[in-house]
């Protein structure tokens, strides 16, 4: 069994060294305590009710000893924790900044060159990264076990994380501040790639994806977007009730709204619901559901929206 997750940032071995140090201190202490406890219980077991016992009430030497030693240990642990924390919170000058926005229940990332990704974070290896993070709604927390970093995201101000990835691979990003129904599914992936790969991704992946899309039926593209853009968190395709209405047999169905009106679910209705789910021109909320869906304006291209609509049409 692995006691620790993969170690994939410069900060990870530092955290692990504190965990190791405190584990040693803890194991020695608990063995000492258990030994004293068990030894005393057997050694001084009651033999009769008339046992004579000494009336020891205090012992200055011992008491000083077990005040001073824990104090020293505590100071050492504090300093370790402080020094590494100080390094972790100090931003390197040449850090590469990526903006992170969390919303129920997805992550979006915006890069300096204008690229945007959804639930997938791309970072180059061995380069200091600084995440500038904000929440669109309730509190969230950005946690990558492999990097040992964690920071809450708040609605009214930016928070930051610094890390330098040291290992290529794909690692989990968890939300660790409880945020409601799909909290445990608010998982994204961070891709640590070589500098070369990263440059390639930065300049060309979009085109590559568009090309890949070119050979695919729109409904197939839509199927991919359904999971990669996070629709899956709230909308089922098997009719199961989620945070939002299921997509099963949605196309062409009569929708009843909270304001009492109703409408058939056609292409324009679906597009409008993706762009203006709660607020905006002609926003409609289906009866029985809360106003929780974030707008996908700017996150999906027109062709992607079309692909999603085509995909919905195929779910019968």
């Amino acid at each position, binding site marked *: *069994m692995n006691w620790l*997750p993969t170690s994939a940032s410069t900060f990870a071995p530092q*955290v692990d060294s*504190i*965990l190791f140090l*405190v584990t040693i201190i*803890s194991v020695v202490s*608990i063995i000492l*305590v*258990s030994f004293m*406890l068990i030894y*005393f*219980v057997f050694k*001084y*077991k*009651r033999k009769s*009710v008339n046992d*004579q*016992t*000494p*009336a*020891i009430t*205090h012992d200055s030497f*011992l*008491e000083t000893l*077990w*005040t001073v030693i*824990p104090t020293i240990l*505590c100071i050492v*642990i*504090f300093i370790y*924790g*402080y*020094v*590494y*924390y*100080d390094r972790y*919170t100090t931003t390197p000058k040449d850090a590469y900044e990526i903006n992170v926005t969390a919303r129920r229940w997805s992550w979006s990332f915006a890069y300096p060159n204008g690229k945007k990704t959804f639930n997938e974070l791309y970072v180059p290896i061995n380069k200091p990264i600084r995440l500038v993070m904000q929440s669109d*709604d309730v*509190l969230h927390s950005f*946690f990558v076990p*492999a990097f040992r*970093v964690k920071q*809450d995201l*708040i*609605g*009214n*101000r930016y*928070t930051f994380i610094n890390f330098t990835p040291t290992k290529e691979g794909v690692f*989990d990003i*968890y*939300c*660790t*501040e*409880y945020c*409601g129904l*799909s*909290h*445990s*599914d608010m998982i994204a992936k961070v891709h640590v790639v070589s500098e070369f790969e990263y440059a390639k991704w930065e300049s060309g992946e979009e085109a590559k994806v568009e090309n890949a899309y070119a050979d695919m039926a729109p409904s197939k593209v839509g199927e991919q977007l359904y999971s990669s853009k996070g629709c899956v968190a709230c909308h089922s395709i098997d009719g199961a009730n989620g945070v939002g209405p299921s997509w099963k047999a949605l196309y062409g169905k009569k929708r009843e709204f909270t304001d009492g009106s109703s409408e058939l679910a056609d292409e324009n209705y679906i597009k409008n619901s993706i762009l203006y789910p709660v607020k905006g021109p002609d926003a409609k909320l289906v009866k029985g559901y809360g106003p929780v869906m974030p707008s996908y304006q700017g996150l999906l291209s027109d062709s992607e929206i079309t692909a999603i609509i085509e995909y919905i049409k195929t779910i019968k």
Partner: protein
Amino acid sequence: MTDHHDFDKNYLENGKGFKSWFFSVDHKRLGVMYLWAIGVFFVLAAIASFLIRFEHLSPGQTIVSAQTYNVLFTLHGAVMVFLFIVPGVAASFGNFLIPLMIGARDVIFPKLNLYSFWVYCAGSIILLGSLLAPVDTGWTFYTPYSIDTGTNVIMVTFGVFVLGFSSILTGINFIVTMHKLRAPGLTWDRLPLFCWAAYATSLLQVLATPVVGITLLLLIGERYFGLGFFDPAKGGDPVLFQHFFWFYSHPAVYIMILPAMGIISEVLPVFSRKPIFGYKAIAYSSLAIALISFLVWGHHMFTSGQSKLINIIFSVITFAVAVPTAIKVFNWLWTMYKGSIELSTAMLYSLAFIFLFTIGGLTGLFLGALAADVHLHDTYFVVAHMHYVMIGGTVFGLFSAIHFWYPKMWGKMFDEFKAKIAFVLIFIGFNVVFFPQFILGTQGMPRRYFNYSPEFAFLHQLSTYGTWILGVGFILMLYVLCRPTGPASANPYNSLSLEWQMPSPPPTLNFKEIPTVNDSTYAYGTKIEQEA
């Protein structure tokens, strides 16, 4: 109230029926009623936790939906914290024991004491009334989620607000009682350590509880009237709520644990036939812990976005609170040195307390260290740490008290052998439930997760199996306690403490004549040897 009192009758027999209890101002009856109430709430919240663990038997949905899961962990946390463990030992055994231990006939304000109990009942009913539209915020009610959710947050928080008054009034009552009603000769440095612990707890209750009351009122105002204290959309600050909340809820951790520490300090000397080692260190460290506990709330918020400097300061003070705790553990251990140790059930629970609480305390060192907390915060590591302190500490302390004072409270004895079997099951079950969670958390498993990655499945399942052992242990313990074996003598353990120097169960009036105290409560052993 009845006009006819028979003060010589034992308190259990002085009046029968619901009214004779529910309108009784007798501190012993109130203590027993609190014990029943917290017992019922403990069972309720424990059932919720068993369902939570059962849900985790497999990744994804096992028995309940995500929403039900979120409701269950909120219910478990809110009931355990506000209805069980905060009133907990202090209200039940504090009420029953303090007047007996200090040689008084009752607390100083008996009617206020009854009123506190009624307020507790009212608050409990309001809090549980929220089950009609059960809350899904977690027991911490973090904003802005708690403003945003459609569930019945107002009712739960109002329930907690009302419960706060019960806590404050009980605290005041105990403080004044200990100042005014100590028997002649019972100086502060002879006061039983349980009373010292209850005194420190009462201080916390009186000083910290108003803060959570006000905070929850602000939250209610925000939800009901749309005031913008915490909602960033209205210019409020969600992190402010966390500061307010933990300003109470961290001292509340010590409201929960200090009385249990007091119990350990009573049980160990009796079953070791030794004076408590380092009386003054234990008494003063109770007060020191109580005071420092007001200054460490920010260690719950290292990753919340508060400033770096503040984090560093809170980390320093957090380590400062670890030291008096370590001192207590070694003082308890050394109390057994050269003693005459009897492994009664109560003693076993107390020894288990020392072991489990030490693990709880040591794992706190991981969380106090800033860089390590960045990784461990809000993972199962925290869940395990907290339960080692709250169950391994407080609940084991409570169980020790229930067994230790059983003869005094009910006038009967119980089957020690069967009770010890229950102890073994509870001890093993507890460790199987919570120890794997330390590893889960270190591996990066976040808390409050309905779903989890398959790589965590084995440890989750192990933890769930532990709850079944624990459950059998609880049931066996209850069974044993419900089947007394015979009448108890006044002082079956030869304790020197005042409450054992009267018949079991105690007469309604406690003391016909107020006793005079000439020596320490812990004057066990022969003093000659010490001088040699």
